[in-house]
């Protein structure tokens, strides 16, 4: 009898071992698949990325449509059309580069604080740029590419001039998007011990009179 029971037991043990191995393999492979695909980016980050890409692609479509319109105007009109297009383009680029006074809808943010650094101001300006700011000034100093925001012993300078508190930041752009960003920024600032007061207001017309002085290229050459 014992010699007949031994093979039966061996088969039972093998079957159980096989089953356990199968379940373990399926489970481990499934988990590994999840982990492998999630490397680096979680679903929430991906969802935000999708939102950003949709917004970016919409902006690119608008730019494409605008360029196609300009191309069509140039193709049909000869020199007069070219003059008109070039004049409009020059005015637009001067506004983008901060070379002329501008106005439009936007927000005005006022920050009363002591001890804020140049990095704080740069972060604030970048947050407004992310929210679609098309022109920005702080305490009547236009900011833009090439305008140095520097930390000095007495505080922060913009293009060489010290910016005394309170900081009044004016931004032109989509007022709703700018207000959303300003709301979040002022909430965060109020939680900062260095900040005594931070507020913003939405305005139908924000007037930015300050301009940046054009600097000719010394090192860069057109390719």
């Amino acid at each position, binding site marked *: 009898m014992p010699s007949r029971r031994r093979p039966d037991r061996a088969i039972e043990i093998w079957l159980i071992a096989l089953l356990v191995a199968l379940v373990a393999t399926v489970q481990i492979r499934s988990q590994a698949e999840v982990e492998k695909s999630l490397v680096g980016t979680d679903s929430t980050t991906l969802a935000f990325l999708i939102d950003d890409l949709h917004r970016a692609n919409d902006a690119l479509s*608008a730019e494409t449509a605008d*360029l196609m319109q*300009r191309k069509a105007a140039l193709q049909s009109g000869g020199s007069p059309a070219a003059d008109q297009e070039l004049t409009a383009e020059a005015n637009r680029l001067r506004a983008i580069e901060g070379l002329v*006074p501008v106005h439009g809808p936007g927000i005005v943010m006022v920050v009363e604080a002591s001890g804020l650094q140049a990095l704080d101001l740069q972060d604030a300006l970048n947050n407004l740029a992310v929210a679609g700011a098309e022109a920005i000034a702080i305490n009547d100093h236009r900011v833009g590419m090439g305008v140095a925001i520097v930390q000095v012993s007495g505080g922060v300078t913009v293009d060489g001039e010290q910016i005394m508190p309170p900081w009044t930041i004016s931004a032109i752009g989509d007022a709703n998007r700018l207000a959303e960003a300003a709301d979040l920024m002022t909430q965060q600032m109020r939680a900062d011990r260095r900040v005594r007061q931070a507020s913003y207001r939405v305005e139908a017309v924000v007037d930015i009179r300050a301009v940046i002085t054009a600097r000719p290229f010394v*090192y860069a050459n*057109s390719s």
Partner: protein
Amino acid sequence: MARNRILGVVGLAAVALATGFLLAGQVKAQLLTPSNEVGRYQALVRSVQDLEKTNEASRAKIAALRAEIDALEGAAAQQSATTRELQNQVADLRAHAGLTAVHGPGVEIDLGNGTPAPDQAGGIGYLINYQDVQDVVNLVFARGAEGVSVSGRRITPLSAFSGSAGQVVIDQGPPLTAPIKVLVIGDRNRLLAALDDPASLLDLRTRQVRFQIALTVAGIPDLKLPAYDSSLQIPHVSTS
């Protein structure tokens, strides 16, 4: 005896069957969540990939359209001195806005992720983030940079930096991840001095020590920067 054996085998089979059903049920229940998770995640990844393809195609189309417009303006400028004068003005403005490719002396800055280590920033202090890139770009512009590109993306007066957990999003481009290459045209000596100053880029330098983040700077005699290939619209701005 034989009857007992048959009953024993049947009983064992029934227990094995019940165990099998229980295990199958358990396996199915446990795998359901991860399978759905994978499916949802893959759908999100596919969406991102599709949107990035559209993004790339749109940017290529914008670059091509700008080149065509430039050629048409050039042809019109051949016929009129006024048009030629206007075209020169616009060419200069476009170059300053980053809309044309430029070359010249400058510096190359390479930023690379470090080694993971415990930190207070949620364990991601070893990753290069958008604020690192923003700090480098601000520093070089403050030291007279005339043109900057970040991993092939030209910086303009309206450029903005965003992103999360090691991703760097610039304007309407797809997210970039380290290694990040920043090319800068300008006064090489002034730029190198600013980038080598231990008082500059403090956060990056601290993390360079702590996480071995890579921050290398080299002077280059002639760099090439691409033209900006995205949107530069200001629909809410009016000139006075």
